[in-house]
């Protein structure tokens, strides 16, 4: 399938901002089951400097320097991506989860695809004993990693309430877990923390969902904004498998991957510092259209 994605981020400031230094992670990955066809970002006001590099995780990262005073910052990103992904069945056979853990602990690579980078606490995802205890029943001794993760995803979807007003980025995971509500980002962080508590490798994925669902299917939660889900390492054979706990779905052709990291802080699509206005109003609009 081929998608056209438009992702527009605007900041409105109360007082003029004289200087901004931003990092943009807006280029969709070319990866297993996904191919970037075209990509362009337009920024207003016009930046004094734009430099591009790949970060540790392989994410295309653009550093932008703005030196003209402005009250509005608009970042307009357009991408065309082709997706052809096949998810394993929810009950597909997979290695026992304990085996996955041992292999991850004994990894011999520090690279971005190595499971070892995703078994430890990260800045937004601490390992919390109650959360580990919550995840544990999904992983019976000797149970397959895939079935375990599917079960955990299903339970999170059932136990947590999607509420776009309940949390902000800085809401600690502990609070999200105790109050059992949040947005896609929180659902993903909860699942990641549960898996890592058991020593299992889980990564955070930012991306998009198609806006208009296929005929006869309900519109998915999170389709009009940037979305987030979880990628779990299921052994050398299955590799990394996508789990969307917000929608209780294995990731297939309705999801477009933007970038992958340990948690939101590694992949934040637009991030930066400004000099000037402490008061900001943010608006994000995402459109994902099926081209063919």
């Amino acid at each position, binding site marked *: 399938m081929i998608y056209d994605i438009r992702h527009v981020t605007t900041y409105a400031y109360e007082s003029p901002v004289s200087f901004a230094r931003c990092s943009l992670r807006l280029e969709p990955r070319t990866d297993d089951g996904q191919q970037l066809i075209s990509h362009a970002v337009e920024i207003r006001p016009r930046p004094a400097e734009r430099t591009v590099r790949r*970060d540790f995780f392989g994410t295309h990262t653009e550093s932008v320097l703005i030196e003209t005073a402005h009250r509005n910052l608009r970042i307009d990103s357009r991408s065309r991506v082709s997706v052809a992904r096949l998810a394993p069945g929810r009950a597909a056979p997979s290695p026992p989860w304990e085996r996955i853990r041992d292999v991850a602990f004994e990894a011999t690579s520090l690279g971005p695809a190595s499971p070892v980078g995703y078994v*430890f606490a990260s800045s937004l995802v601490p390992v919390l004993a109650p959360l580990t205890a919550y995840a544990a029943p999904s992983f019976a001794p000797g149970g397959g990693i895939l079935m375990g993760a599917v079960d955990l995803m299903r339970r999170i979807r059932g136990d947590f309430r999607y509420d776009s007003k309940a949390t902000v980025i800085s809401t600690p995971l502990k609070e999200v877990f105790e109050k059992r509500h949040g947005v896609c980002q929180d659902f993903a962080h909860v699942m990641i923390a549960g898996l890592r508590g058991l020593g299992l490798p889980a990564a955070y994925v930012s991306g998009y969902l198609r806006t208009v669902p296929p005929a006869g299917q309900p519109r998915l939660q999170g389709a009009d904004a940037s979305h987030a889900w979880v990628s779990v390492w299921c052994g050398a054979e299955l590799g990394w498998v996508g789990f969307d706990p917000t929608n209780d779905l294995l990731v297939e052709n309705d999801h477009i991957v933007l970038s992958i990291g340990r948690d939101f802080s590694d992949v934040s699509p637009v991030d930066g*510092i400004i000099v000037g206005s402490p008061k900001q109003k943010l608006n994000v609009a995402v459109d994902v259209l099926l081209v063919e």
Partner: protein
Amino acid sequence: MSGQGNNQESKARPGQRRMAQWTRDYARLPGTPDEYIGPDGAPRAAWTRFFDAFSALSAGDIERRFASADRHLREAGVTYRAPGETADRLWPLSHLPLIIDEADWQQLTTGIAQRAQLFEMILRDLYGEARLVSDGAVPAAAIAGSNEYLRAVCGVKPPGNRYLHFYAADVGRGPDGRWWVLNDRTQAPSGAGYALENRLVLSRAFSNLYKSMNVERVAPFFEAFRDSLRASADRDEPRIGLLTPGAFSETYFEHATLARYLGFLLVEGDDLAVSGDRIHIRTVAGLKRLDVLLRRVDSNFLDPLELDASSHLGVPGLIDVLRKDGVVVANMPGSGVLEARALLGFLPSLCHRLLGETLIMPHIATWWCGQKSAREEVLSRLEDFVIEGAYGRAVPGFSSHAPVLAGELPPADRDRLRQAITDRGIDYVGQELVRLSTTPVWEEGRITPRPFVLRVFAAATPQGWTIMPGGFCRIAEKADARAVSMGDGVRSADVWVVSDKAVASATLLPGADTVRIRRIAGVVPSRAADNLFWLGRYLERAEATLRLIRALGTSTRDPAKGASTALHSVERIQRILVTWDATSQATRTNPARVIAEALQSEEKFGSALSLVRSVQRTASSLRERLSPDAWQIITEMVERLALQVDDDDSIVSAAELTLQELASLAGLAQENMNRAAGWRFLDMGRRAERAINTARFARQFAYDEAGEDDLDVLLTLVDCQITYRSRYLVGPALAPVRDLAVLDPYNPRSVAFQVAALNDHIAALPSLKEHGLIERPQRLAVALQATLTTAEAATLDVKTLFALEQDLLNLADAIGLHYFPHGPNASRPEKLTGLA
């Protein structure tokens, strides 16, 4: 001298008796080696030499010298903070040094230098190709688990071509008599500045003893370190900053000490900015390039843009500057990854592989539970192990930062630990419980053995690693010293590496051919200028408040004089004190309460006590720029004003004493401070505040209908009684008093004099703008001076005086806006918010 032999002999007998008394009960703890008593049960030679000389001092002399050491520490304001505390603690110094024989030390230094070099090599690999990991020499998890493994600098070549510039190891002597490593510090080791201070204090208190012991000097070590950092930059005469988290940091005193001693600029993240491909420091003369940053801020806080986004301690864009080779950071961000205990077990084989040598220094036997065999070993006899976190200081799942002695845990906690190690063994190491050696401390007139940890420092130089002969020794009360941090009951000690031969004395004085003569002492960071300006203002405001208190106090106590100070003048003084928030309300019936409150109130931010506290607080952010004498006066001033006084007489004399101290501070600044830009800001603060206060006093006491008593009060407040009387034979008259207090350019207390001084300062400061127009502070100051020069006393009515006061306030604000970091050109950056 012919009499010397006899003299010593006659001293020796009581000395030996005393020594026998001290050491009578000194016994090694069971199964524990000791520094004083060797393995053969006999005292070690270096210690015997020390105690021989020490016991030649009389008991009273020893106590006097101990007291003098403590006094020096207090007066110099050597402080630290225990984690989680907000108040500074006085530095607890053990009065006896730790003494290490040169031959013994030599072994230690070889081991430390090898270890430092090994770490440098490991870092180069890990942040480069990571062959050690792909070849299986180091498990990936042992690295990836560390919070200090910075993915952002993977593949970035460290500017200056090295990761480690400064390294420290905590060591202790094991039961086998060798030195063992307990911890490695590769991030931003602390303690070297405290070691320096300990040395200063003890060598002063026991100067002859110190000289006679042939103690290795530490100065050459610091010199070598400074020169190496300098050489790592890409230009001659580089600008080097010491990056501190700020005055609230636990070891801020040390940062200031080191910055002053090494001649580096003490900077905070806010003082720095990225411009182009370089780091710059915000100074009163605009942005100036910074070449080298010695950091005391942990890696993750260094760059809110790429690392911990919530950090206010760093510089946005710093990591990108590293990518562009624009600044040397010591140590390179990410170096802290090697502090992980998970790595300890792999070091012997890494040493063979990378250096082709056998690892010299042993460390405590460590099992990293991320490996199956080690995990099973630890779980099989958990009770025998000390469990520590594999990466950070904390043991995951256990709240205390101290190591967990599995054998001493209640059964429920032990089961919890067992489960945690089973689930996530990668987070834990098991370590052998060892008894490390003890050293004598002085307690109640005799010596007692106490466990200690010695921190040894190494600096990278172009010629290889150099080790500080000495170190930072922490002495614990508890038997297991491995987790000693400076907290309750912990003392520190100076460390003497002693030689049989005389040692060369050395200081930080460089050779004549290496220094270019310069008369302007570096740049003044905007923040330092801001603090200096406010220090000046607080000092002057404290002085004015004390003069008001004194005027009020003497008017009520002296019946002869009291009669002449009319009630309405007293009320006016009280009103000013109320406006300045020195006292809550004016009163006719109880003036004594007013002056007591204005002098000592803890709640009123305008009381003299609060003001000198503000002086102290501001001065503490300027430690590296103030002389020890100045700091000492400030400390004494605060301590004395905090002592409760009750009657009028003692209030007035407390005010007078404090005024004298303020005068000596002013004298120190005037006579001893270098006239480079820093001094100008201190003086500008003082001048601006004095001008404002004098204008206000003139308005209050030289109003259009003012009587002789009012004018008399004004002359007292502005300290012009004598000048006036020598100039005029009549009593105080309105126009002459106004002229003297406000317009007279020759009177150093007049408003006109302050404004002239401010003009001189502003003209001498660098201009920030390029468009050639006169800048706002100067515009205001020049206009004010013109007004004052041309004004006449007769027309100087209350309205004019009020306008003058407003203009002066505007001038002070304009100076602040123009030169200091909260000005429009240098706002603190904000994070972009929200889920974008």
